[in-house]
């Protein structure tokens, strides 16, 4: 990565997580990671995340977690030395730098491994070996990987498939019947059905309450314990106690 930070595109698909992005920014800053400015790096990362926000790009949660952590690190680094912070900001900065060095070292090592003389690409074993007779113990051959993979395959066939239905809070028909029946006792005037609903904030629970209460209202009307009135389809639905 040789581009200046400003020229980095905002395509986060190219990065394997925040650490990868940080390493790219650091590499753009200096070749020797030991000489980079952590404060500058933090600012670049935060600017990057800000720009993503301005462009309304959706950022994975861990980018935001890292941003929050770096914002904390930045403020800790900027505090006067006299102020004791816990943990020590300088130490956190060194550890961040060390992590970048580690990742970079492994990346470099991987590239050097891949560049070695590899069998099947650079060197070749004998094409048609006569083969050696192996004694009876390894007459049958199995690779360890095959053994483990087979176990997964075999158990998958008999493993029960589990369907988990999320436990959701709802208002049952019984509860709606009880509540509506009790409230209707004092309702002499026409009132919309919404007035009879329990006072809940959760939108899903509120829809459940409305549905249950609607069914309860029909049932109460059937029993002669409620009267319903609606001027038009989808117009407000009114309820009241039957006129005696």
């Amino acid at each position, binding site marked *: 990565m040789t581009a200046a930070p400003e020229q980095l595109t905002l395509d986060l698909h190219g990065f394997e997580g925040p650490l990868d992005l940080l390493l790219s920014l650091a590499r753009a800053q200096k070749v020797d990671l030991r000489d980079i400015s952590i404060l500058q790096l933090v600012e670049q990362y935060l600017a990057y995340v800000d720009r993503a926000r301005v462009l309304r790009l959706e950022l994975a949660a861990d980018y935001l977690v890292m941003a929050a952590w770096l914002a904390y690190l930045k403020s800790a680094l900027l505090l006067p030395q006299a102020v004791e912070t816990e943990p020590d900001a300088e130490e956190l900065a060194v550890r961040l730098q060390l992590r970048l060095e580690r990742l970079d070292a492994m990346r470099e090592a991987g590239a050097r491994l891949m560049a070695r003389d590899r069998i099947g690409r650079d060197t*070749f074993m004998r094409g048609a070996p*006569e*083969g*050696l007779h192996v004694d009876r113990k390894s007459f049958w051959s199995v690779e*360890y990987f095959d053994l483990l*993979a087979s176990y997964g395959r075999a158990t998958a066939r008999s493993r029960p498939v589990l369907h988990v239905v999320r436990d959701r809070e709802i208002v049952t028909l019984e509860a709606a019947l009880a509540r509506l029946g009790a409230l209707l006792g004092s309702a002499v005037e026409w009132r919309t059905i919404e007035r009879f609903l329990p006072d809940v904030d959760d939108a899903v629970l509120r829809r459940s309450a409305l549905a249950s209460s609607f069914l309860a209202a029909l049932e109460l009307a059937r029993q002669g314990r409620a009267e319903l009135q609606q001027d038009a389809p989808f117009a407000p639905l009114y309820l009241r106690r039957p006129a005696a």
Partner: protein
Amino acid sequence: MSDAYERAVEAVLFAATEPLSRDAIRAHVGDGDVRGALDRLVVRYRGRGVELVERGGRWHFQTAPDLAHLLRRGRDEVRKLSRAGIETLAIIAYHEPVTRAEIEAIRGVQTGRGTLDVLMEAGWVRPAGRRDVPGRPLMFATTPEFLSHFGLTSRRDLPGIDDLRAAGLLDPVDLAFDQLAVENHREED
């Protein structure tokens, strides 16, 4: 002193999966004195453990005939265990001691008589007493040879179910479905 062309001919013949004609050799190493290189290689390998020979205009390396007794049988003697055999072996390793009926319950298919025989012949599985239930079915377990074949110190070294799942070794065919389920039910992990 070996010349570059001779080295190239040597390498191509070594890596070839079948005997090569002079034209085939030339197709690999480019134009040059193939015949001269072959002649020099024959001399170089004469009396060694390996020799360069011509059969019907095609050239190949072979081990010296007088040393054939060291190699004994061909490699086709090593046979791969069948899929049923590997699965049965894996189930015994994870569940031992285990009866044939229990193995079949996990595999979801019947286990042929030959499958357990092969595993016992290979020295990886042994009878391990009888289960105290009606019919007193035979139980099976793995042997120390099984552990050493797979480089395991003990059965505790076998990866657990969670490890297998994490490595993607469970449900290999249902990968997409499985991933979906993981996303919907992160709390299960």
